[in-house]
């Protein structure tokens, strides 16, 4: 479509300002975020800490959404499916078998990946808006299944009463909101680091190349569908891990945790965060969840109305997210200063190869 060319130019320009400064800024920002994240439970009360833990969990699901939506180019509304599968798998395991955190996390990841592997044929052959539609149906059907399958999931009442989790064999159990929050923070941090590292390997590059020019990749002999299937299963594992964390963080799980509104919130958060950015996905999701909670406290009963308004405003104002907006502003300022020396830069031309490559770079 036509607008893509212009966008490629603007964001490519923002990426290529001065990479060294930018990298340093990103690292400093990430360090500050980590310090703030660790300090949170000592700064706020227990209840707020538990809300922060749940927000982090949703942020991790947001990472899996960004992995598919932004990096692989499969926009999804269905990551609540593997999220729910991982959560229920982990809850059942926690009640009957093991309360060791590592075992639960691995189980959650395995169940999420299995869920994704079973639904792979539904998703990877489609593209674009068809994927949105199919994944939405998958997510919704999972919730329906969860509320009907009473013997395992407890129906719409949900499952409660899991014993407290101990992170590793022989360690103390997580018996306070602060401990559960820190556990969540550590796991989310580790998973995010793994995702970032994998995206920097050739595997991540192949995925972004498949997104940017599928035809050329196929012509060069790359099994694009296979790559997408692997990305989908990996995103399922990330979402399943988040499901396991959800059970640990709130010690309760019910179909209401995986509703349509959750999928849509995640997608909104990821879009605000810039779609392909892993850090942006967490920040965007946290922002949207915080706004939702703030609105529902501010105007009880009317939160969905204002939240709907937020969706509409986002769609109009920053279709490329806040990150995209700042990049656009930056490139606008730069193009003005540059236009004094030269006439307008070629912002109306199509993207060339180097610009496309710069655009597909993952912002940490």
């Amino acid at each position, binding site marked *: 479509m036509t607008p893509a060319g212009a966008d490629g130019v603007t964001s490519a320009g923002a990426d290529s300002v001065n990479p060294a400064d930018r990298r340093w800024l990103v690292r400093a920002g990430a360090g500050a975020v980590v310090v703030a994240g660790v300090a949170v439970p000592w700064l706020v009360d227990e209840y707020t800490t538990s809300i922060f833990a749940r927000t982090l969990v949703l942020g991790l699901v947001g990472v899996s959404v960004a992995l598919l939506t*932004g990096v692989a180019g499969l926009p999804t509304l269905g990551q609540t499916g593997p999220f729910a599968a991982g959560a229920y798998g982990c809850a059942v395991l926690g009640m009957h078998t093991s309360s060791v955190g590592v075992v639960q996390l691995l189980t959650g990841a395995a169940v999420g990946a299995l869920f994704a592997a079973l639904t792979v*044929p539904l998703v990877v052959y489609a593209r674009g*808006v068809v994927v949105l539609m*199919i994944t939405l149906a998958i997510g919704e059907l999972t919730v329906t299944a969860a509320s009907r399958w009473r013997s395992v999931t407890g129906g719409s009442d949900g499952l409660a009463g899991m014993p407290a989790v101990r992170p590793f064999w022989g360690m103390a159990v997580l018996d306070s909101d602060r401990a559960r929050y820190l556990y969540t923070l550590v796991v989310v941090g580790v998973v995010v680091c793994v995702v970032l590292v994998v995206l920097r390997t050739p595997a991540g590059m192949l995925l972004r190349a498949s997104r940017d020019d599928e035809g050329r990749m196929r012509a060069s002999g790359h099994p694009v569908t296979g790559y997408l299937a692997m990305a989908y299963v990996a995103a399922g594992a990330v979402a399943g891990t988040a499901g396991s964390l959800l059970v640990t963080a709130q010690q309760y799980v019910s179909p209401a945790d995986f509703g349509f509104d959750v999928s849509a919130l995640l997608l909104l958060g990821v879009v605000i965060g*810039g779609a392909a950015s892993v850090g942006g996905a967490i920040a965007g999701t946290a922002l949207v969840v915080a706004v939702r909670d703030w609105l529902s406290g501010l105007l009880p009963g*009317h939160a969905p*109305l204002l939240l*709907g308004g937020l*969706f509409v405003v986002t769609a*109009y104002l920053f279709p490329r997210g806040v990150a995209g907006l700042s990049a656009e502003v930056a490139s606008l300022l730069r193009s003005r200063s540059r236009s004094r020396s030269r006439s307008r830069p070629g912002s109306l031309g199509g993207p060339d190869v180097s610009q496309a490559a710069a655009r597909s770079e993952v912002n940490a």
Partner: protein
Amino acid sequence: MIIQAARWAGPLDAYLIPALDGIAYGLLLFVAASGLVFCFGVANILNLAHGTLYAIGAYTAAAVADGGWATLLLALGVGVVAAAGAGGLLAGLLAPVARRDHLTQALLTFGVALAGGSLLVTAFGPDNLPIKIPAALDGSVAVAGHRYATYRLVFIGVAAVIALLLYLAVTRTRAGMLVRAAVDDADMVACLGVSPARIRLGVLAAAGALAGAAGVLGAPIIGPGPGAADTVLLLSLVVVVLGGLGSVLGTLLAALAVGEIQTLGVALAPTAAPFLLFAAMAAVLAVRARGLPGRLRTGLRLRLRSTA
């Protein structure tokens, strides 16, 4: 003779009523989902507010119909006009982002669904509302030895007529020709001088009218309540995935299949029904191997351009 028929039906007899219910449910889904198929196939919009358009119709039926024929017809008129108007409004909201990617459009329509659902709950309360239908339709009739709700039987007839009219409109009229042409090649239709904005407006208003009609007539089956919009949207999406685009017959068969799964499937295996919908989607997509029909896929080969 009725008794004989019942004996002849033998072990299948117990499932006759759920199967009949499935037809009613399927035809309701057909009327509701065909609007979504048009939005998606013709204007290439994933309208996540489609369920809300249905809910507008259903709430209109609850508010206007008081048990008489006149008010039922009035409710049908008001519901169709209100939902068509809401569809037109949605087209207006979508106009500024028409050239953006589909993610933006999906977010926008979802925002409208969220806000619209909230407004409906504010106006009509958070409970499922009862529907008053004319006394003549409120009873039950004998069908092969079983009692069956008269309204549903009449609904099957009315919905079948709507399906037939829709089929004729798509295959025989100029508007239908335009619809089929836009499904095949929207760019070419635009080149031939038909404004895409006008197509979008027409299609969304028509989709709203269909959803509104489904809402008013189907209110006794999927009643007005906070969950109605979600249910209708989900089942309509499954119908679109199963039935593909651009074929009224495909949509009809898919809707009947989903209706039977939701009624007969629930009667046969209560816990397995949601998995049956999964299985049906998987089977259809596997048979087609490429999801929606190939000629559409080329039109839908959309890249996500929102990456920063």
